[in-house]
Protein backbone atom coordinates (compact mmCIF):
# COMPACT_ATOMS: atom_id res chain seq x y z
CA UNK A 1 0.00 0.00 0.00
CA UNK A 2 1.52 3.25 -1.10
CA UNK A 3 0.74 6.42 0.77
CA UNK A 4 2.05 9.95 0.75
CA UNK A 5 3.99 11.31 3.68
CA UNK A 6 4.50 15.04 4.22
CA UNK A 7 7.22 17.17 5.81
CA UNK A 8 6.98 16.90 9.59
CA UNK A 9 5.29 13.46 9.60
CA UNK A 10 6.95 11.07 12.02
CA UNK A 11 8.39 8.10 10.21
CA UNK A 12 10.23 6.26 13.00
CA UNK A 13 10.64 6.52 16.76
CA UNK A 14 14.38 6.13 16.51
CA UNK A 15 17.10 7.76 14.45
CA UNK A 16 17.39 6.37 10.92
CA UNK A 17 19.02 7.48 7.73
CA UNK A 18 16.25 7.44 5.14
CA UNK A 19 16.06 9.49 1.93
CA UNK A 20 13.67 12.40 2.19
CA UNK A 21 13.82 12.24 6.00
CA UNK A 22 15.70 13.90 8.84
CA UNK A 23 16.46 13.15 12.48
CA UNK A 24 15.59 15.46 15.36
CA UNK A 25 15.75 14.60 19.07
CA UNK A 26 16.38 10.95 18.25
CA UNK A 27 13.30 10.51 16.05
CA UNK A 28 12.98 10.37 12.28
CA UNK A 29 10.59 12.64 10.39
CA UNK A 30 9.86 13.18 6.70
CA UNK A 31 11.42 16.30 5.21
CA UNK A 32 9.95 15.87 1.73
CA UNK A 33 6.64 14.91 0.20
CA UNK A 34 7.36 11.23 -0.45
CA UNK A 35 5.72 7.97 -1.36
CA UNK A 36 5.90 5.43 1.40
CA UNK A 37 5.34 1.75 0.67
CA UNK A 38 6.14 -0.92 3.27
CA UNK A 39 9.69 -0.17 4.28
CA UNK A 40 10.53 2.09 1.41
CA UNK A 41 10.33 5.89 1.19
CA UNK A 42 10.94 7.71 -2.08
CA UNK A 43 10.77 11.52 -2.28
CA UNK A 44 8.72 12.84 -5.19
CA UNK A 45 11.32 15.47 -5.99
CA UNK A 46 14.88 16.20 -5.03
CA UNK A 47 18.13 17.98 -5.75
CA UNK A 48 21.36 16.22 -6.36
CA UNK A 49 24.02 16.93 -3.74
CA UNK A 50 27.48 15.46 -4.54
CA UNK A 51 28.24 12.35 -2.51
CA UNK A 52 31.41 10.34 -2.14
CA UNK A 53 31.41 7.23 -4.30
CA UNK A 54 28.75 8.42 -6.76
CA UNK A 55 29.37 7.95 -10.48
CA UNK A 56 28.25 11.13 -12.15
CA UNK A 57 28.20 12.82 -15.53
CA UNK A 58 29.47 16.38 -15.54
CA UNK A 59 29.17 18.81 -18.42
CA UNK A 60 31.95 21.29 -19.13
CA UNK A 61 30.51 24.75 -18.55
CA UNK A 62 33.73 26.77 -18.36
CA UNK A 63 37.28 26.29 -19.53
CA UNK A 64 39.91 27.80 -17.26
CA UNK A 65 43.64 28.00 -17.60
CA UNK A 66 44.25 25.15 -15.19
CA UNK A 67 41.21 23.03 -15.86
CA UNK A 68 37.46 22.94 -16.26
CA UNK A 69 34.32 23.77 -14.31
CA UNK A 70 31.63 21.15 -14.64
CA UNK A 71 27.88 21.56 -14.38
CA UNK A 72 26.48 18.72 -12.29
CA UNK A 73 22.71 19.27 -12.55
CA UNK A 74 22.96 20.30 -8.93
CA UNK A 75 23.20 23.51 -6.91
CA UNK A 76 26.86 22.49 -6.72
CA UNK A 77 29.41 22.20 -9.47
CA UNK A 78 32.73 20.41 -9.61
CA UNK A 79 36.09 21.17 -11.10
CA UNK A 80 38.46 19.00 -13.01
CA UNK A 81 42.10 19.89 -13.14
CA UNK A 82 43.75 19.76 -16.57
CA UNK A 83 46.36 17.48 -15.06
CA UNK A 84 43.78 14.83 -14.23
CA UNK A 85 42.46 14.32 -17.71
CA UNK A 86 44.23 13.08 -20.78
CA UNK A 87 41.60 14.44 -23.15
CA UNK A 88 41.40 18.04 -24.15
CA UNK A 89 37.90 19.12 -23.24
CA UNK A 90 35.61 21.72 -24.78
CA UNK A 91 32.48 23.51 -23.68
CA UNK A 92 29.52 21.10 -23.41
CA UNK A 93 31.65 17.94 -23.41
CA UNK A 94 30.34 15.24 -21.09
CA UNK A 95 32.60 13.55 -18.54
CA UNK A 96 31.74 10.38 -16.67
CA UNK A 97 33.62 10.31 -13.35
CA UNK A 98 33.56 9.05 -9.80
CA UNK A 99 33.38 11.35 -6.78
CA UNK A 100 36.35 10.58 -4.60
CA UNK A 101 35.59 13.02 -1.82
CA UNK A 102 33.31 15.92 -0.94
CA UNK A 103 34.17 18.73 1.51
CA UNK A 104 31.80 20.62 3.85
CA UNK A 105 30.80 23.07 1.18
CA UNK A 106 29.99 20.19 -1.18
CA UNK A 107 32.96 20.70 -3.48
CA UNK A 108 33.70 17.37 -5.14
CA UNK A 109 37.01 15.84 -6.06
CA UNK A 110 36.62 13.71 -9.20
CA UNK A 111 38.63 10.71 -10.29
CA UNK A 112 38.72 8.32 -13.28
CA UNK A 113 37.28 10.90 -15.66
CA UNK A 114 36.23 9.54 -19.05
CA UNK A 115 35.16 11.79 -21.85
CA UNK A 116 31.93 10.53 -23.37
CA UNK A 117 31.54 10.48 -27.15
CA UNK A 118 29.39 13.04 -28.90
CA UNK A 119 25.75 12.37 -28.26
CA UNK A 120 22.52 13.73 -26.82
CA UNK A 121 21.94 14.52 -23.17
CA UNK A 122 19.16 15.41 -20.84
CA UNK A 123 19.13 16.30 -17.19
CA UNK A 124 16.44 14.75 -15.02
CA UNK A 125 15.59 14.85 -11.32
CA UNK A 126 18.23 12.63 -9.69
CA UNK A 127 15.49 11.09 -7.58
CA UNK A 128 14.27 9.30 -10.73
CA UNK A 129 17.59 7.68 -11.60
CA UNK A 130 16.79 4.33 -9.95
CA UNK A 131 13.69 4.09 -12.15
CA UNK A 132 15.66 4.75 -15.31
CA UNK A 133 18.10 2.02 -14.38
CA UNK A 134 15.46 -0.39 -13.11
CA UNK A 135 15.91 -3.44 -10.93
CA UNK A 136 19.28 -4.96 -11.80
CA UNK A 137 19.52 -2.61 -14.74
CA UNK A 138 16.48 -4.12 -16.44
CA UNK A 139 14.92 -0.83 -17.58
CA UNK A 140 18.20 0.40 -18.99
CA UNK A 141 18.61 -2.88 -20.88
CA UNK A 142 15.13 -2.52 -22.37
CA UNK A 143 15.89 1.02 -23.50
CA UNK A 144 19.22 0.04 -25.07
CA UNK A 145 17.74 -2.97 -26.78
CA UNK A 146 14.92 -1.14 -28.50
CA UNK A 147 16.87 1.95 -29.42
CA UNK A 148 20.25 0.46 -30.14
CA UNK A 149 21.73 3.43 -28.25
CA UNK A 150 24.52 3.41 -25.71
CA UNK A 151 22.96 5.00 -22.64
CA UNK A 152 24.99 6.23 -19.67
CA UNK A 153 23.20 7.43 -16.52
CA UNK A 154 24.93 9.53 -13.86
CA UNK A 155 23.70 9.37 -10.28
CA UNK A 156 23.28 13.12 -10.55
CA UNK A 157 20.52 12.74 -13.13
CA UNK A 158 22.43 13.47 -16.32
CA UNK A 159 21.59 10.94 -19.02
CA UNK A 160 23.89 10.60 -22.02
CA UNK A 161 22.73 8.84 -25.19
CA UNK A 162 25.07 7.89 -28.01
CA UNK A 163 24.08 6.46 -31.35
CA UNK A 164 21.00 4.42 -32.26
CA UNK A 165 17.58 6.01 -31.99
CA UNK A 166 18.66 8.67 -29.52
CA UNK A 167 15.44 10.64 -29.91
CA UNK A 168 13.34 7.66 -28.90
CA UNK A 169 15.64 6.89 -25.99
CA UNK A 170 15.26 10.39 -24.64
CA UNK A 171 11.48 10.35 -25.14
CA UNK A 172 11.34 7.12 -23.17
CA UNK A 173 13.49 8.55 -20.37
CA UNK A 174 11.22 11.61 -20.14
CA UNK A 175 8.17 9.37 -20.00
CA UNK A 176 9.69 7.29 -17.22
CA UNK A 177 10.36 10.46 -15.25
CA UNK A 178 6.83 11.76 -15.68
CA UNK A 179 5.27 8.46 -14.68
CA UNK A 180 7.89 7.26 -12.24
CA UNK A 181 5.51 6.89 -9.33
CA UNK A 182 2.86 4.92 -11.14
CA UNK A 183 2.55 1.18 -11.47
CA UNK A 184 2.63 -0.72 -14.73
CA UNK A 185 5.33 1.61 -15.99
CA UNK A 186 7.63 -1.09 -17.30
CA UNK A 187 4.85 -2.52 -19.47
CA UNK A 188 3.87 0.90 -20.79
CA UNK A 189 7.45 1.78 -21.66
CA UNK A 190 8.02 -1.50 -23.41
CA UNK A 191 4.78 -1.02 -25.31
CA UNK A 192 5.74 2.48 -26.36
CA UNK A 193 9.17 1.37 -27.50
CA UNK A 194 7.67 -1.48 -29.50
CA UNK A 195 5.17 0.78 -31.21
CA UNK A 196 7.72 3.44 -32.01
CA UNK A 197 10.30 1.07 -33.43
CA UNK A 198 7.62 -0.73 -35.44
CA UNK A 199 6.49 2.57 -36.91
CA UNK A 200 10.03 3.42 -37.86
CA UNK A 201 11.10 0.19 -39.40
CA UNK A 202 7.72 -0.48 -41.04
CA UNK A 203 8.11 -4.16 -40.25
CA UNK A 204 5.80 -6.59 -38.50
CA UNK A 205 5.57 -7.07 -34.76
CA UNK A 206 8.76 -7.59 -32.84
CA UNK A 207 8.83 -10.26 -30.22
CA UNK A 208 10.62 -10.44 -26.96
Amino acid at each position, binding site marked *: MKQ*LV*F*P*GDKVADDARRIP*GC*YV*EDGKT*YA*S*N*VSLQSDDHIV*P*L*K*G*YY*VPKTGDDIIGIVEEERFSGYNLELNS*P*YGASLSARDTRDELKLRDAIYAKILAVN*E*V*KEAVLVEPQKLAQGSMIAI*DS*VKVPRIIGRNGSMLDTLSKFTGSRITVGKNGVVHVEGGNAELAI*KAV*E*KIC*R*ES*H*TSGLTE*RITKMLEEQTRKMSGQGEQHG
Partner: protein
Amino acid sequence: MVEKADLFKNGKRLDGRGPKDLRPLKITAGVLDRAQGSCLIEWGRNKVLAAVYGPHEVLPKHLADPTKAIINARYVMAPFSGQEEHGRSGPNRRSIEISKVAKHVFENAVLVDQFPKTMIDVHMEVLQSDGGTRVAGITAGAVALADAGIPLRDMPVGISCGKIGEHMVVDLDKYEDNLGDSDMPFVILPRTGEILLSQMDGMLSREDISQAFDMIFEGAQKVRNMQIEALKTSYERMATHAAEGGQNQ
Protein backbone atom coordinates in the same frame (compact mmCIF):
# COMPACT_ATOMS: atom_id res chain seq x y z
CA MET B 1 -19.56 52.71 5.14
CA VAL B 2 -18.58 49.96 7.51
CA GLU B 3 -18.36 51.12 11.10
CA LYS B 4 -16.68 49.45 14.02
CA ALA B 5 -20.04 48.66 15.61
CA ASP B 6 -20.95 46.58 12.58
CA LEU B 7 -18.04 44.24 13.04
CA PHE B 8 -19.60 42.09 15.72
CA LYS B 9 -23.35 41.78 16.26
CA ASN B 10 -25.29 38.99 17.95
CA GLY B 11 -22.35 36.64 18.05
CA LYS B 12 -21.69 37.06 14.35
CA ARG B 13 -19.08 38.95 12.46
CA LEU B 14 -19.68 41.22 9.50
CA ASP B 15 -19.52 38.36 7.02
CA GLY B 16 -21.63 36.07 9.19
CA ARG B 17 -18.77 34.09 10.70
CA GLY B 18 -18.50 33.05 14.32
CA PRO B 19 -15.39 34.02 16.31
CA LYS B 20 -13.51 30.82 15.48
CA ASP B 21 -14.57 30.46 11.86
CA LEU B 22 -12.05 30.79 9.06
CA ARG B 23 -12.89 32.39 5.74
CA PRO B 24 -13.23 30.03 2.78
CA LEU B 25 -9.79 28.70 1.99
CA LYS B 26 -8.47 27.07 -1.15
CA ILE B 27 -4.87 26.02 -1.68
CA THR B 28 -3.53 24.76 -5.00
CA ALA B 29 0.01 23.42 -5.39
CA GLY B 30 2.10 23.29 -8.53
CA VAL B 31 0.36 26.09 -10.43
CA LEU B 32 3.45 27.42 -12.22
CA ASP B 33 5.73 25.55 -14.61
CA ARG B 34 9.05 27.35 -14.55
CA ALA B 35 9.34 27.72 -10.79
CA GLN B 36 10.68 24.70 -8.92
CA GLY B 37 7.67 24.83 -6.64
CA SER B 38 4.59 26.99 -6.47
CA CYS B 39 1.28 27.49 -4.74
CA LEU B 40 -1.77 29.69 -5.13
CA ILE B 41 -3.73 30.44 -1.98
CA GLU B 42 -7.22 31.88 -2.07
CA TRP B 43 -8.19 32.82 1.45
CA GLY B 44 -11.39 34.81 1.71
CA ARG B 45 -10.87 37.47 -0.93
CA ASN B 46 -7.10 37.22 -0.71
CA LYS B 47 -5.14 35.77 -3.58
CA VAL B 48 -1.46 35.20 -3.03
CA LEU B 49 0.88 33.37 -5.38
CA ALA B 50 4.03 31.80 -3.97
CA ALA B 51 6.94 30.54 -6.07
CA VAL B 52 10.20 28.90 -5.09
CA TYR B 53 13.48 28.86 -7.01
CA GLY B 54 16.61 27.07 -5.88
CA PRO B 55 18.70 25.97 -4.19
CA HIS B 56 21.00 27.89 -6.52
CA GLU B 57 24.36 29.58 -6.47
CA VAL B 58 24.58 32.81 -4.50
CA LEU B 59 25.54 35.89 -6.43
CA PRO B 60 27.47 37.94 -5.46
CA LYS B 61 29.56 35.05 -4.20
CA HIS B 62 30.80 36.77 -1.06
CA LEU B 63 27.29 36.75 0.37
CA ALA B 64 27.20 32.95 0.44
CA ASP B 65 27.18 31.22 3.81
CA PRO B 66 29.56 28.24 3.87
CA THR B 67 27.46 26.50 6.50
CA LYS B 68 23.95 26.79 5.14
CA ALA B 69 21.56 28.00 2.48
CA ILE B 70 20.43 31.63 2.59
CA ILE B 71 16.74 32.30 2.31
CA ASN B 72 15.70 35.16 0.05
CA ALA B 73 12.08 35.86 0.97
CA ARG B 74 10.24 38.47 -1.03
CA TYR B 75 6.74 39.68 -0.18
CA VAL B 76 5.32 42.20 -2.60
CA MET B 77 1.85 43.57 -3.40
CA ALA B 78 0.72 44.08 -6.97
CA PRO B 79 -0.32 47.70 -7.61
CA PHE B 80 -3.86 46.51 -8.42
CA SER B 81 -4.20 44.29 -5.36
CA GLY B 82 -6.04 46.65 -3.02
CA GLN B 83 -9.46 48.19 -3.22
CA GLU B 84 -8.12 51.72 -3.38
CA GLU B 85 -6.29 53.44 -6.15
CA HIS B 86 -3.31 52.06 -8.06
CA GLY B 87 -0.46 51.48 -5.68
CA ARG B 88 3.23 51.87 -6.39
CA SER B 89 5.07 48.95 -7.90
CA GLY B 90 7.70 47.15 -5.98
CA PRO B 91 8.58 46.87 -2.32
CA ASN B 92 7.79 49.52 0.24
CA ARG B 93 8.75 49.68 3.92
CA ARG B 94 5.86 47.50 4.99
CA SER B 95 6.65 44.81 2.45
CA ILE B 96 10.35 44.92 3.35
CA GLU B 97 9.48 44.28 6.99
CA ILE B 98 7.11 41.48 6.04
CA SER B 99 9.76 39.95 3.78
CA LYS B 100 12.14 39.96 6.73
CA VAL B 101 9.82 38.24 9.20
CA ALA B 102 8.80 35.76 6.50
CA LYS B 103 12.46 35.01 5.88
CA HIS B 104 12.87 34.12 9.56
CA VAL B 105 10.03 31.61 9.30
CA PHE B 106 11.60 29.83 6.36
CA GLU B 107 15.08 29.96 7.91
CA ASN B 108 13.66 27.82 10.68
CA ALA B 109 11.49 25.49 8.63
CA VAL B 110 13.87 24.74 5.75
CA LEU B 111 16.70 22.29 6.51
CA VAL B 112 19.20 24.91 5.41
CA ASP B 113 22.21 22.88 6.60
CA GLN B 114 21.69 20.48 3.72
CA PHE B 115 22.58 23.11 1.12
CA PRO B 116 25.55 25.20 2.23
CA LYS B 117 26.64 28.09 0.03
CA THR B 118 23.35 28.27 -1.87
CA MET B 119 20.30 30.53 -1.92
CA ILE B 120 16.64 29.58 -1.92
CA ASP B 121 14.15 32.18 -3.19
CA VAL B 122 10.63 32.27 -1.82
CA HIS B 123 8.50 34.81 -3.64
CA MET B 124 5.10 35.80 -2.30
CA GLU B 125 3.13 37.96 -4.73
CA VAL B 126 -0.11 39.40 -3.42
CA LEU B 127 -2.48 39.55 -6.35
CA GLN B 128 -5.51 40.56 -4.33
CA SER B 129 -5.56 41.67 -0.71
CA ASP B 130 -8.30 41.59 1.91
CA GLY B 131 -6.60 41.31 5.29
CA GLY B 132 -4.14 38.61 6.34
CA THR B 133 -1.96 38.57 3.26
CA ARG B 134 1.25 37.89 5.12
CA VAL B 135 -0.03 34.76 6.84
CA ALA B 136 -1.61 33.67 3.56
CA GLY B 137 1.65 34.29 1.70
CA ILE B 138 3.75 32.36 4.19
CA THR B 139 1.25 29.48 4.27
CA ALA B 140 1.50 29.35 0.47
CA GLY B 141 5.29 29.69 0.60
CA ALA B 142 5.43 26.61 2.80
CA VAL B 143 3.45 24.59 0.27
CA ALA B 144 5.58 25.92 -2.58
CA LEU B 145 8.73 24.78 -0.75
CA ALA B 146 7.28 21.30 -0.25
CA ASP B 147 6.15 21.29 -3.89
CA ALA B 148 9.70 22.19 -4.91
CA GLY B 149 11.13 19.22 -3.05
CA ILE B 150 13.12 21.44 -0.68
CA PRO B 151 13.56 19.57 2.61
CA LEU B 152 11.58 21.03 5.53
CA ARG B 153 11.35 20.28 9.26
CA ASP B 154 7.61 20.80 8.81
CA MET B 155 5.38 23.14 6.81
CA PRO B 156 4.75 26.41 8.67
CA VAL B 157 1.14 27.53 8.96
CA GLY B 158 0.05 31.15 9.22
CA ILE B 159 -3.10 32.42 10.88
CA SER B 160 -4.18 35.72 12.37
CA CYS B 161 -6.05 36.50 15.53
CA GLY B 162 -7.44 39.73 16.87
CA LYS B 163 -9.78 41.54 19.18
CA ILE B 164 -13.01 43.26 18.21
CA GLY B 165 -14.51 45.06 21.20
CA GLU B 166 -14.67 42.35 23.83
CA HIS B 167 -14.31 39.40 21.50
CA MET B 168 -11.22 37.51 20.38
CA VAL B 169 -11.61 36.32 16.81
CA VAL B 170 -9.59 34.32 14.35
CA ASP B 171 -8.66 35.13 10.72
CA LEU B 172 -9.29 38.84 10.39
CA ASP B 173 -10.48 40.26 7.12
CA LYS B 174 -9.65 43.78 5.93
CA TYR B 175 -12.44 45.55 7.83
CA GLU B 176 -11.66 43.72 11.05
CA ASP B 177 -7.96 44.44 10.58
CA ASN B 178 -8.49 48.16 10.00
CA LEU B 179 -11.34 48.90 12.40
CA GLY B 180 -10.87 46.28 15.11
CA ASP B 181 -8.89 46.69 18.32
CA SER B 182 -5.96 44.41 17.71
CA ASP B 183 -4.40 42.38 14.94
CA MET B 184 -1.97 39.53 15.58
CA PRO B 185 -0.57 37.56 12.70
CA PHE B 186 1.11 34.32 13.78
CA VAL B 187 2.99 31.57 12.03
CA ILE B 188 3.52 28.29 13.83
CA LEU B 189 5.27 25.04 13.12
CA PRO B 190 2.54 22.44 13.74
CA ARG B 191 4.85 19.56 14.59
CA THR B 192 6.39 21.28 17.60
CA GLY B 193 3.94 24.12 18.31
CA GLU B 194 6.79 26.61 17.99
CA ILE B 195 5.92 30.20 17.18
CA LEU B 196 7.94 31.31 14.17
CA LEU B 197 6.25 34.63 13.50
CA SER B 198 4.47 36.87 15.93
CA GLN B 199 3.54 40.47 15.40
CA MET B 200 0.95 42.57 17.03
CA ASP B 201 -0.65 45.93 17.25
CA GLY B 202 -3.47 47.02 19.50
CA MET B 203 -3.75 46.56 23.26
CA LEU B 204 -4.09 43.13 24.78
CA SER B 205 -3.98 41.76 28.30
CA ARG B 206 -2.21 38.52 29.25
CA GLU B 207 -5.58 36.78 29.28
CA ASP B 208 -6.36 38.01 25.78
CA ILE B 209 -3.02 36.70 24.54
CA SER B 210 -3.49 33.35 26.22
CA GLN B 211 -6.91 33.00 24.66
CA ALA B 212 -5.47 34.01 21.31
CA PHE B 213 -3.00 31.14 21.47
CA ASP B 214 -5.75 28.59 22.02
CA MET B 215 -7.64 29.91 19.05
CA ILE B 216 -4.71 30.03 16.71
CA PHE B 217 -3.52 26.51 17.46
CA GLU B 218 -7.01 25.25 16.75
CA GLY B 219 -7.38 27.28 13.57
CA ALA B 220 -3.88 26.38 12.39
CA GLN B 221 -4.79 22.71 12.31
CA LYS B 222 -7.56 23.45 9.80
CA VAL B 223 -5.15 25.37 7.58
CA ARG B 224 -2.59 22.57 7.84
CA ASN B 225 -5.17 20.08 6.56
CA MET B 226 -5.70 22.29 3.50
CA GLN B 227 -1.96 22.39 2.81
CA ILE B 228 -1.83 18.61 2.83
CA GLU B 229 -4.90 18.37 0.59
CA ALA B 230 -3.25 20.67 -1.91
CA LEU B 231 -0.12 18.54 -2.14
CA LYS B 232 -2.15 15.33 -2.32
CA THR B 233 -4.31 16.71 -5.11
CA SER B 234 -1.29 17.91 -7.01
CA TYR B 235 0.24 14.45 -6.79
CA GLU B 236 -2.99 12.77 -7.85
CA ARG B 237 -3.32 15.15 -10.77
CA MET B 238 0.17 14.20 -11.89
CA ALA B 239 -0.42 10.49 -11.40
CA THR B 240 -3.71 10.57 -13.30
CA HIS B 241 -2.18 12.48 -16.15
CA ALA B 242 0.63 9.96 -16.27
CA ALA B 243 -1.71 6.97 -16.19
CA GLU B 244 -3.64 8.44 -19.10
CA GLY B 245 -0.55 7.91 -21.17
CA GLY B 246 0.89 11.41 -20.97
CA GLN B 247 -0.96 12.19 -24.17
CA ASN B 248 1.35 14.35 -26.20
CA GLN B 249 4.42 12.24 -25.82
